[in-house]
């Protein structure tokens, strides 16, 4: 069955540290890829998405992600995290021919220490 794996379940960083969260999916066809974030007490919201074109995509708040097709990966990065980045991060995919069905990874809780 198709699945999405996030390697890190809980990450603790100090402010200004660099962040990379891993995401891999298992599906051989075309996918649309997403990173969502849920800040404490807030709705799930989109950080960035990739459909096609430049595999390096930039999102809100200085986040970026790189799609590496050969590795089935879509890792999220940020050069310097802030305390306000403390949140839960979800990687998700929509498979071609599977209209609307978002398949989510397990989520990564990021805690940034001031």
């Amino acid at each position, binding site marked *: 069955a198709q699945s999405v794996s996030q390697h890190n379940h809980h990450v603790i960083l100090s402010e200004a540290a660099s962040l990379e969260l891993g995401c891999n999916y298992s599906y051989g066809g075309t996918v649309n890829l997403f990173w969502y974030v849920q800040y404490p007490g807030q*709705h799930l919201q*989109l950080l960035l998405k990739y*459909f096609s074109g430049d595999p390096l995509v930039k999102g809100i708040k200085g986040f970026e992600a790189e799609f590496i097709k050969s590795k089935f990966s879509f890792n999220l990065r940020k050069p310097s995290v802030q305390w306000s980045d403390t949140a839960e991060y979800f990687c998700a995919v*929509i498979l071609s021919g599977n209209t*609307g*069905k*978002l*398949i989510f990874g397990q*989520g990564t809780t990021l805690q940034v220490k001031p």
Partner: protein
Amino acid sequence: SAVISQKPSRDICQRGTSLTIQCQVDSQVTMMFWYRQQPGQSLTLIATANQGSEATYESGFVIDKFPISRPNLTFSTLTVSNMSPEDSSIYLCSVGQGFDEQFFGPGTRLTVL
């Protein structure tokens, strides 16, 4: 984008009872979805709510347990029937357009005793 509201925001229910969760969108949308997020786990799609026809359920979810209504293009309800403690979860409504991003509601936190 779309603004989505859900009612109730949270509830505590007794085993064997049912709860209906409402999802309201501020604009007409084609696709509405219901997800479940069990404690410590990720989001799982329950069903796609189709306007004017029966909902499309994912494997492991059935209409008798999770009946869904979609009377128009801005509103949907999800009922959690004959609840047990295992139904304690956050239930989220989302809207989207095909293969593009989805917008999520704030969720309904359900605790079943």
